[in-house]
Structures are given as C-alpha cells and as structure tokens.
C-alpha cells in the first residue's frame, strides 16, 4: 500500500506586490512525515508558508497545492484552516482584549460547531497546557498581549495541539526559545502533531532538529529548494554553513 500523500506542492511561485519571492518550489509530504525547510533569512521560507496558509498579500501566481488530495488554492485562509492546515506564525499577532481561552473556544467552534469537542474544551485545554508547561493564568490573558517571545511560540503550539490539523507548518517556532523552552516545545510538537498528518518545520538552525528528527530536510536559497536530503543534511549545513552550500550550489547550476 502506498503511503497517503498529505501535502503536494508543485512548482509554486509566490509574488508580493508584484515581486517574485518564491520561484518554483515543489514538495511532497506523506502522512506521518516531518520535513524541515532550512535557509537563511530572506530566502522566502515565510513567504511560502504565508502563501500556503492563504495570506491575501502573498499571491501564488502559478503551481498547484493539494492538501490530502484536495485543491488548496481555491480556498480562503479560513477554509484552508478548516481543511486541516495550520500555520504556526513566525511573528504571532497580538489581539488585545481577547483571552486565549475565548479565542481557542471560538476557533474550535468554527470547526466543530457546538459539537462534542466544545464540551470537552476545558478538559483538553488543561491537558495541553500541562503538556506545554503553560500556567493556568495563560487562559485568561489576552492573545499574545505582553507575551515574551518564548510564550508566544508556546501559544502557537498550544493552538496547534487544540486544533489538531492534518498538516502543520511551524515557522521558526524554535527561535527566541532558551534550551529548556525548546525542549518543552519540541516535546509538545512530538506529542501533539497528528500521527497520520504531516509537519513542516521551518528553521534556520539545526538545534530543534536534535529533538525532532526530520524525515527530510530541504534547503531553500533565494526562493528555490536547492537541495534535499535526510536528517544528516541539517548537520552538514550546521558544520559548513550556508555560504559553503551556496557556492556549491551556484557551481552546480553554473551561475
């Protein structure tokens, strides 16, 4: 039996304000797999992630994307979320006056109506907070309002854990975390990422990958995936740095 393809990205191009940022990316993720996308700042990782999640300013000008066999690109951001896509933001937004608990309740209600999951809300919420070592007082704080960088990232994972997506794109969830927080967040990702779904870890350090071993690593430079390999590729990269890789690649393609 062939594995179920959870995400299929084919030759995707992304423009922001008329400028092409992502220049033809293809990526296949099978259910149960974790992939890492690595690359320097500005290489287009977040642009790809935002475009996949349906941000109106990131226009996918060509290419196709399927989530669990369904075309994603004719859907709004809302519909993509409901279809099972989750984006953990690199820079989570602040929503003053809206408590974490109320927000999550609204988000769960959006996908399940007033069904059983909303009734279990409290219980599941407590469990997940415990998993991520988040204090109870978080529930009544306003969404990301006055949160430290690390708290924001933990909250992103809490949201993922509550919403149980088919595919989670976690954009630099590791940045701004100290080593203890990193362990907790990594553990939270391992525990709550759906087993038969997929995860994309976007990062530019390899340290998170010590805790979450990726099935595949993709290196992105200037809007393209220039190299794909196993978990060892991240270690190579760590040893040699992006510069070495860039020279290598430019020689290969003869730039």
């Amino acid at each position: 039996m062939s594995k179920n393809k959870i995400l299929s990205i084919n030759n995707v191009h992304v423009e922001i304000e008329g400028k092409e940022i992502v220049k033809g990316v293809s990526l296949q993720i099978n259910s149960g797999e974790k992939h890492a996308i690595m690359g320097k700042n500005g290489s287009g990782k977040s642009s790809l992630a935002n475009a996949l999640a349906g941000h109106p300013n990131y226009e996918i000008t060509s290419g196709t994307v399927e989530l669990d066999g369904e075309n994603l690109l004719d859907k709004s951001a809302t519909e993509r979320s409901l279809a099972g896509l989750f984006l953990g933001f690199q820079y989570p937004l602040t929503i003053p006056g809206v408590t974490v608990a109320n927000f999550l309740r609204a988000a769960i209600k959006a996908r399940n109506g007033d069904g059983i999951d909303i009734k279990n809300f409290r219980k599941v919420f407590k469990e997940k907070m415990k998993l991520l070592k988040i204090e109870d007082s978080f529930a009544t704080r306003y969404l990301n309002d006055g949160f430290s960088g690390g708290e924001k990232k933990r909250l992103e994972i809490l949201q993922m854990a509550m919403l149980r997506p088919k595919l989670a794109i976690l954009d630099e969830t590791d940045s701004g975390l100290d080593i203890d927080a990193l362990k907790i967040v990594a553990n939270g990702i391992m525990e709550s990422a759906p087993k038969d779904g997929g995860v994309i870890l976007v990062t530019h350090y390899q340290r998170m990958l010590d805790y979450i071993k990726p099935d595949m690593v993709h290196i992105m430079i200037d809007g393209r995936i220039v190299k794909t390999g196993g978990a060892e590729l991240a270690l190579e990269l760590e040893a040699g740095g992006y510069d070495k890789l860039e020279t290598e690649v430019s020689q290969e393609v003869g730039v």
Partner: protein
Amino acid sequence: MGNITTNKSIGTIGEDYAEKYGFHDPEEYFHKGARGINHEVVEMISKMKKEPEWMRDFRHKALDIFLSKPMPGWGDTEVLNNIDFDNIFYYIKPTEEQSDNWDDVPEYIKNTFDKLGVPDAEKKFLGGISAQYESEVVYHSFQENLKKQGVVFLDMDSGLREYPEIVKKYFATVIPAMDNKFAALNSAVWSGGSFIYVPPGVDVTVPLQAYFRINAENMGQFERTLIIADKGSRVHYIEGCTAPVYTTDSLHSAVVEVIALDDAYIRYTTIQNWSNNILNLVTKRAVANKNSTIEWVDGNIGSRLTMKYPCVYLVGEHAKGEILSIAFAGPGQHQDAGAKVIHFAPNTSSRITSKSISKAGGQASYRGLVKVHATAKNSKSSIECDALLIDEKSRSDTYPTMEIDAANVKIEHEARVSKVAEEQLFYLMSRGLSEDEARLLIVNGFIEPFTKELPMEYAVELNRLIELEMEGSVG
C-alpha cells in the same frame, strides 16, 4: 444585507434591530397632547401632574431660557439646526395610572417590555425596575427589603410628590436650566425618569434599573433623573433604551443629576440602543463630595446623533471620578460622546477611558474637558482615547481640552486611532474563523475594558448588539 428602513438617508439598520426592538405598538393613549412647545403645553403638563407652585414656575422660567438660548455651536450643528421643535409631541401619557404589577399594564405595553426582556431581567438580578413608555413610567417595582432599609427608588414624579423636601433641596442644583438649550428644554417639559435616595451607610448590592421606551413617531422623551447617595452608601443604577424604526426623527433629551455625599459610591451604567432616527441629546452630571466615587459607564450603540458628555464635579477632597465610555457609529450615525471632569478640591483623581468604533461611514467623536482649578492641588487625571476604524469610509475625531490651573498636578493623556489590521484578521482566519467572525472578535476585544465592567447579563447583551451592528460589515 437586510435593509428595511424606508428612509435611505438614515442609512442601513440591521434587520435584527427592526425585528427585536424596532417594532411599534398601536397608540391607545390616555392622553396625547398636540405637537409643538409653548407656555400652554408647559402649564398643561404641570397641571396634569398636580405639581407644587415652585416646580410650575421652574418649568415656565426654563421654557423662556430654552426659547432665548442659542443652539450649541459644537457637535453636529447641521442636525441640531434642523430640529423642527414644532413637530414634536412633548407629552404623551400612555396609561392613567402607574402599576407595580405587570398584569395591570395594558397588554400591548406589557408585550413590548416582554419582548425587550425587561420583566425577565427584573426577576433574575435586579433590586428594582422602572419601565418608562413615552412620557410616563408605566410600571415600577422595588424590593421590599431595600424599602425597609430606607432606600427610595421611584419615578421622578412620584419622588417629587412623596419626598418634596429632598427633591427641592437637590433638583436642578447640579444642572440648572441655564446650563444648555437642551437642559432648559428638559427642565420645561420633563416627565418621568428616576428618583433614588440611599440613606447613610446603606449598600444597595443589587442594581436598580430603568428602561426607557419611545413608541410614537416624532416623540420627545424628556425624563429627569436625580440620584442621591447619602454618606457612606453605595448604589449601582442601570438604564437601557430602545425605540421603533421610523422615517422621521424623535428627540430624547434627558437630564441626569447624580450626587454622592461623603464616602459614597455611585455607578451609573447606560446601554443606549436607540433606533437610528433618535436624536439623543442628554446632559449628565455628578457631584462627588469628600472621599466619594462616581463612575459613569456609558455605552452608546444606537441613535442617529448622540451628544452626551457625562461629567463629574470633584468638589470634596480625595473624591474620585471615572468615566468609561464606548461609542459605536454605524452608517448614518454620529456619536459625539465624551467626558468632562472638573477638579475643584485637592487630592482628587479622575480617569477617562473612551473607546469608539466607526463602521461603514459612521462618525465617532470624542469631546472631552478636564479642568483642574487652582484649588485642586495634588490632583491627577488620566485620559485615554482609543478609536477603531473598521473601514476607510469611517471617521473618528478627538477634541480633548485640558485646563490646568493648579500646582502639582499629574495628567496623562493618550490618544490612538487604529484600523483593524489585515495581519490580525489573517492570524484569526488562519485558525478557522471567518473574516466577519475575526473582525467581530477584534472589536469585542477592543471594547473588553468596557464590557468587563458590566454585569454578566449586560455584557452578553452588549456583545450581541455589537455583533448585530458588525454583521455584513464588509461592503
């Protein structure tokens, strides 16, 4: 989006307003006077109410002031100058008698208040309630145990009859007829409203509420409220209001005087939800004596034009005044709301928090005055104005005035205008909320500092009202 008003110039009112509040009853009134205002009308009102001489004189003098006083030169002067005072009904008495039993209230009026949830609220969590329909309070009830503690809660007319000495002592002392044109008009033709007196040391732990309903077209409702909290007492008063949707304007012009004696605490909460054909021109002012606290919690959702600036005079040392307000301006609406605090005594403090939301061409203005007299040294005041614009068509203005004549005064002032950010919407939508749900959540969060001050039932109601107003907010 539903649009059931026939007058397009008023703009769009959500279909739900018409259904839930905007219906009107057939008029089966005990007395409905003629349109227009003159000394005969004033005389007739005073006669029908069998008032003492001093009140009758007060009314006539007030009418002269009204007739001679110019219109305010601020706010929406165009709308103000177009008010046709000859076209308004100044006094409508729907029933012959006030009742303390819903079964004695005419069926159609009872049904109206049923639909508005008034008897329900009474049963659930209120210590007393007054239901005013047109010019008169038609239903009034008040808990026995509060009566036994000497708390007085009556409609203003009964207050004048039963407690003439208290009324005479305080009436129009906070807001004299001279104050402004609309205070003068109210003084001439006032009817209904609430009279509350809380004896020294008594803590009224359950809120007292009044509900104001306008039914007739071109009605003028001029209730008059007087609240006195004697030394060391506490009380929370809540008012709500709605009206049918008509094509021509009605006028609501109340005068509210609030007096906190030493160490007393008064909170006055308003949820104003008039239909979009009501001009809401209200004067509200409180006097805070030594160590006392006044809080105005003022929510303005409805009306075509509101001009209202709840005010606190801090006359006793260590008195505190707080004004927390929100205004929602939808299409065709102008909310000219704000706050005034005058520091007279030393060591007084005040805090103003004003939040406005403008949508689909609505206009919200904050107009505020903080004055610290030379006598009010060591006082402090903080003012925070926050405006949220839902779209490009909407407007927000702030007109803050500060006059500081005392030494050692601490003033903080912050004003912000923000738009619902696309990034915020995307963040919430990426969690599965629709664009409308996302926007509503942001708006609810924006007014949360206000909502959290309301009793639970009202917070729920307010969020629901905002939800109705926000429906179909994208073009």
